[in-house]
């Protein structure tokens, strides 16, 4: 069909395309492998749609700048890899407590530290969850294909706007640099969520008061006549800093619950060949692609095995993993780290079924052959 928009696209490129469709009009970043194409493509495309690109002096400046941009009502994103992701934790914490929507892409590479800069890894699963200090919840998404990078980036922006929170988009080097043929949807058919703005008289605006029917406070843009205070300190409903322990507890609880109480809305996952399965593998990102290939072979050899693939990594799909655990005799968590998501799966599923892990951290992909051998040996 002539009106189909079919393109050959790289994961990092699909991320920018999705971001632009979602409404990104500000990008601040710092060069780092293997995420750099996201900055390069943003630099080329943003001015064409009236958006802004800036290469900041470092990773902390980049996340600070996108938080600043978001305060003016603009959808903003930054992208990085492991070393930069560590530095961005300061800003992620700020965006959590001050409830500033923004998207942080982490194209993972081998770590810790400078690690294996050009090799794939999935070592930032727990940093995404607990990298910033203090009590908090977080939304982290992890696509597995180039098309899914496009869709999930849009979803990252939508969730960020809806829940007024930073959303982390995890990729691995394979997904980011892989090229695939994808069909881009008609932008008119894509659902875009924009933050809710206040309509009250500015003198009545309480920047951090949640209306009864809402999940988060309405967010005014700087310059729109609603003057208010934004701080990383614990603050009251007017945004004013306070040391009041009751207010602190109420705020921190609300910030966690706005995510944890809406897990059903936030969680996205794929079930593959699980209907009749008595054994399951849990994997995400590029690793899940190897698992799918392995499952085809294992099924040909008579095993009833399937894949559960979380696309929303955090908050974890607890309900679905628990249900799975009650249906299968064994779950193997396959990941390019030494067992980070295994900890979460075992926490949820361990009391219902046998949970084990299959890992690799040598900078190479986990191949279908490796997975087949591991499953068949044990």
């Amino acid at each position, binding site marked *: 069909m002539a009106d189909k928009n079919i393109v050959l696209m790289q994961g990092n490129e699909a991320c920018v395309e999705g971001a632009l469709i979602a409404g990104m009009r500000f990008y601040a970043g710092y060069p780092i492998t293997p995420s750099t194409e996201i900055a390069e493509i943003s630099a080329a495309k943003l001015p064409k749609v009236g958006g802004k690109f*800036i290469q900041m002096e470092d990773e902390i*400046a980049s996340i600070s700048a996108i938080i*600043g941009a978001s305060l003016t009502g*603009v959808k903003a994103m930054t992208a990085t890899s492991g070393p930069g992701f560590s530095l961005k934790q300061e800003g992620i914490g700020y965006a959590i407590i001050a409830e500033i929507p923004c998207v942080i892409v982490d194209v993972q590479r081998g770590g810790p530290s400078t690690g294996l800069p050009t090799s794939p890894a999935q070592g930032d699963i727990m940093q995404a969850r607990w990298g910033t200090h203090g009590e908090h919840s977080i939304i982290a998404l992890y696509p597995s294909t180039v098309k899914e990078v496009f869709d999930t980036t849009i979803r990252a922006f939508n969730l960020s706007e809806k829940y007024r929170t930073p959303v982390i988009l995890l990729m691995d080097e394979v997904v980011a640099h892989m090229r695939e043929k994808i069909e881009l949807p008609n932008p008119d058919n894509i659902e875009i969520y924009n933050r809710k703005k206040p309509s009250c008289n500015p003198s009545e605006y309480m920047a951090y008061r949640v209306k009864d029917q809402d999940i988060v406070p309405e967010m005014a843009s700087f*310059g729109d006549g609603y003057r208010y*205070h934004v701080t990383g300190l614990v603050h009251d409903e007017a945004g004013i800093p306070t040391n009041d322990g009751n207010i602190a507890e109420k705020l921190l609880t609300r910030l966690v619950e706005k995510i944890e109480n809406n897990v059903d809305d936030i969680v996205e996952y794929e079930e593959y060949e699980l209907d009749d399965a008595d054994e399951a593998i849990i994997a995400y990102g590029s690793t899940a692609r190897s698992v799918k290939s392995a499952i085809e072979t294992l099924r040909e050899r008579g095993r009833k095995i399937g894949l559960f693939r979380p696309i929303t990594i955090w908050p974890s799909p607890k309900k679905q993993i628990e249900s799975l655990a009650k249906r299968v005799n064994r779950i193997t968590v396959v990941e390019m780290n030494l067992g980070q998501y295994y900890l979460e799966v075992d926490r949820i599923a361990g009391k219902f079924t046998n949970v084990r892990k299959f890992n690799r951290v040598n900078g190479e992909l986990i191949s279908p052959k490796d997975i087949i051998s591991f499953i068949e040996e044990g």
Partner: protein
Amino acid sequence: MVSQLIDKYFRTECLPHIWCPGCGNGIVLRAIVKAIDNLGLNKDDVCIVSGIGCSSRASGYLDFNTVHTTHGRALAFATGIKFSNPNLHVIVITGDGDCTAIGGNHLIHAARRNIDITTIVFNNNIYGMTGGQYSPTTPTGEKGTTAPYGNIDYNFDMCQLAKSAGATYVSRSTVYAANMIIKQVEEGIKNKGFSFIETLTICPTYYGRKNKKGDAVDMINYLKDAAVNISLYEKLSEEEKEGKIPIGEIYRTTRPEYTEKYEEIIKLF
């Protein structure tokens, strides 16, 4: 007059402020709002961004669009705000540690870009909020709680730093010369580019006590005696310059401003 400014520009429900008796920060803050008043800026169009430290608490007291950011990052946040909405008058309030230690990198790069932000540094030569540790502007030989035997670091001349990095308006004043601060903040806001204003203020509680500088009045009198207008200072011999602090307009030039240059790129399409 002061109470009128308070009613007009302060969130009175957030007062009293947290600053110690004798602190000079209130003088600087009053000068900033007076400058804004003199220029007749619409409060909705003004954005005050601060970092972390004693002086950075000022943003919370002011009735504008205000952001109290993370330590050292005020200029990076401000860059995002100004770049995404160039219609806002963006003013950064920061301290000597916030601006030249943890935020030093952001300072030199904001200056290098000549982005239209007015930065006002409250320089009290010490980390006050954390209890008196030496900062990059604590003079060599002076004491702090982390320099119990005297500071062996050399201190920054932050105006020269900002000038070298590319700021297009650079000035210095003291809390004794309060009217000079007002004038400089006005000039800084009017300058289409990166403006850097150092105000020498006093911390009797930590810096003063640790270094036996006397009380607040003694410390302000010291600033009065040490400060020399830049035009006179430049005529002094090297010997006469010893112990003197040049104040006034240190540097001014014109250079295309960052957000305007980017608008030209947008216009290409």
